């Protein structure tokens, strides 16, 4: 239905996610955290995946590396990683097997929100950095050390030789995230998945870290998938953006297009709830009514219907909309999952 979402040359595609479903089998019922997600990432692209907490964006990111643990499980769809001459479907690999371990850290690397907890407290930065290098690049000790120190320098860490022997708690939050980035990029992955990389950092540090990722992205020619709830991050660094709500992508398009011409009521309210510099103090921030439901036993209807200000009774509450192209221009790479858009046709 919507495999044509991305018009990029299929030669450039690195990762192709189709109908991904990740469910959690809880005693209260099946929690459908990710329930049919499609997107592609091309070489060098920056894709932003935005949504509230509970929208399933982090679970999507974890699914890409097959890092979902019990009671969670990838129950459907495919995650195809493209190589020059073959494709590997990550969902078909044993999540604790040898094949997926070759991909993790090597082709797909990940950085996390909380740089304090995402590094082992009892191992030095250097040891944690070298571990990935030993796994995927070289078995030679001195070579690994050279690469590791080089990576720390690349990540903007001053005195990398000394920091190499430091423990995570001896570094500031920003430094830790730099170290984390160094670890993630140490094997020059094709795609970096950045799960809320700046959320836990001070605002000034946030910009530095985003700039660093941007620079390194160009340097290593990799694609980055940003998982965030911060529209600012999207605007700053992404080419394309996918808006996620309750386990599904509800709108997709180029960042400029989405910011200028949002179609889905959810995207519209997200953009409205953002503080702006224009009318000083005169405008109250818009908020979205209600809260994101827990995706267990959802009724068959538009997932946003209960909170939507444009809800059409008799339409939105009896069926689920499909992705459809927004606007009439053919080739316009802007897709939205809303009956309002279908109505326009």
């Amino acid at each position, binding site marked *: 239905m919507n495999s044509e979402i991305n018009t990029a040359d299929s030669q450039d595609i690195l990762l192709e996610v189709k109908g991904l479903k990740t469910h959690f089998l809880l005693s209260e019922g099946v929690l459908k955290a990710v329930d049919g997600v499609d997107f592609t990432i091309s070489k060098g692209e920056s894709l932003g995946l935005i949504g509230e907490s509970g929208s399933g964006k982090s679970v999507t990111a974890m699914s890409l590396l097959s890092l979902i643990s019990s009671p969670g499980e990838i129950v459907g769809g495919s995650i195809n990683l493209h190589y020059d001459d073959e494709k590997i479907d990550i969902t078909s690999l044993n999540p604790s097997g040898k094949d997926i*371990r*070759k991909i993790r*850290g*090597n082709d797909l690397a*990940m950085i996390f929100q909380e740089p304090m907890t995402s*590094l*082992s407290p*009892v*191992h030095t930065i250097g040891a944690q950095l070298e571990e*990935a290098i030993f796994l995927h690049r070289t078995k030679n000790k001195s070579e690994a050390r050279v690469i590791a120190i080089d990576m720390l320098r690349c990540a903007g860490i001053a005195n990398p030789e000394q920091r190499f022997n430091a423990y995570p708690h001896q570094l500031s939050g920003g430094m830790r995230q730099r170290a984390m980035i160094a670890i993630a990029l140490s094997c020059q992955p094709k795609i970096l998945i950045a799960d809320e990389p700046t959320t836990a950092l001070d605002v000034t540090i946030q910009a530095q870290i985003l700039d660093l990722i941007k620079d390194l992205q160009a340097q290593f020619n990799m694609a980055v998938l940003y998982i965030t709830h911060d529209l600012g991050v999207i605007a700053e660094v992404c080419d394309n953006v996918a808006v996620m709500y309750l386990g599904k992508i509800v709108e997709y398009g180029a960042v400029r297009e989405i910011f200028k011409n949002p179609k889905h009521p959810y995207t519209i309210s997200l953009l409205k709830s953002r503080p702006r510099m224009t009318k000083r103090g005169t405008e109250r921030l818009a908020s979205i009514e209600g809260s994101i439901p827990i995706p267990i036993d959802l009724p068959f209807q538009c997932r946003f219907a209960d909170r939507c200000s444009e809800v059409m009774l008799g339409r939105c509450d009896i069926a689920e909309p499909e992705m459809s192209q927004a606007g009439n221009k053919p080739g316009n790479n802007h897709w939205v999952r809303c009956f309002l858009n279908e109505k326009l046709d």
Partner: protein
Amino acid sequence: MYTYIIHRILFMIVTVIILSILTFMIIQLPAGDFVTHLAAQFARSGQSFDQAQLDIIREQFGLNGTLVEQYLAWAGNVLQGDLGWSFQFTRPVSEVIGERIGLTVVISLSTLLFTYLLAIPIGVYSATHQYSIGDNIVMFIGFIGLAIPSFLLALILMFVFLNAGFSVGGLFSPEYLRAEWGPGKIWDLMKHLPLPIIIIGTAGTAGLIRVMRASLLDEIGKQYVITARAKGVHETKLLYKYPVRVALNPIASTIGWELPAIVSGGIIVELVLNLPTTGPMLFNALMNQDLFLASSSLLFLNMLTVIGTFLSDILLVTIDPRIRFTEQEG
């Protein structure tokens, strides 16, 4: 770090002094003294005992002085290496303790080893197989191990061993009791050791399994484990290198005060099993107001506890870089 250690050592010395005063006072709490016990004993057996003789004995051991005088006299002697005289055994305390301390050390250290070697792997298994049948069985046995008082376990196991045809009670078979040390006697000792070790160690093992399981479960879900997995580390290596390593820190550091706990907790078991160790000796010394034997052995136990706690803290500082860091800062 060094100022910290010196600081701690000074505090340890003060603690041991205060403890020795406290225990000396507690031992003296019961009405009368050993001589009263002695007089009562002679009275029971129908022998007459002249008050003047009793006073001479009291005089001889300084039992007539005030509590403070008695303490200072004892403490002064201890500092010079003289642990005093045991009334019950009518021999120097150092000899009485010396005879038993070796076996106590053997039993306590083996129990310690048994506890940790058993509890840690089981705890790791239980945490990595949470809610599995194996985990449930381990948890249930753990509960029972904690619930059965050691002396009762001693009775039950003795009953079982007795019916299974093992020799029970004591640490040596009669033929080796007075024998010189040799391979035969050591082998005989080895055969007698498992029972007391199991009995003394069960509750501790059960407790440690629970601690290990809970602490590993805490760590296993942490972000750094996922980070390592995202690097492509092998699952088994991942488990031992990261969460197990972190979960072990607090447990490894308890070794220091686990030892005195075993020695003190073993007293009742050693009594029931009738072992030639320091436990029953201390018990009888306390019961019969064998003042110097009781004070001196309690002094040993207190020192063991204080030093054990100190070693625990040092161990924790050495193996956990986070703590090392704050100590240096502070």
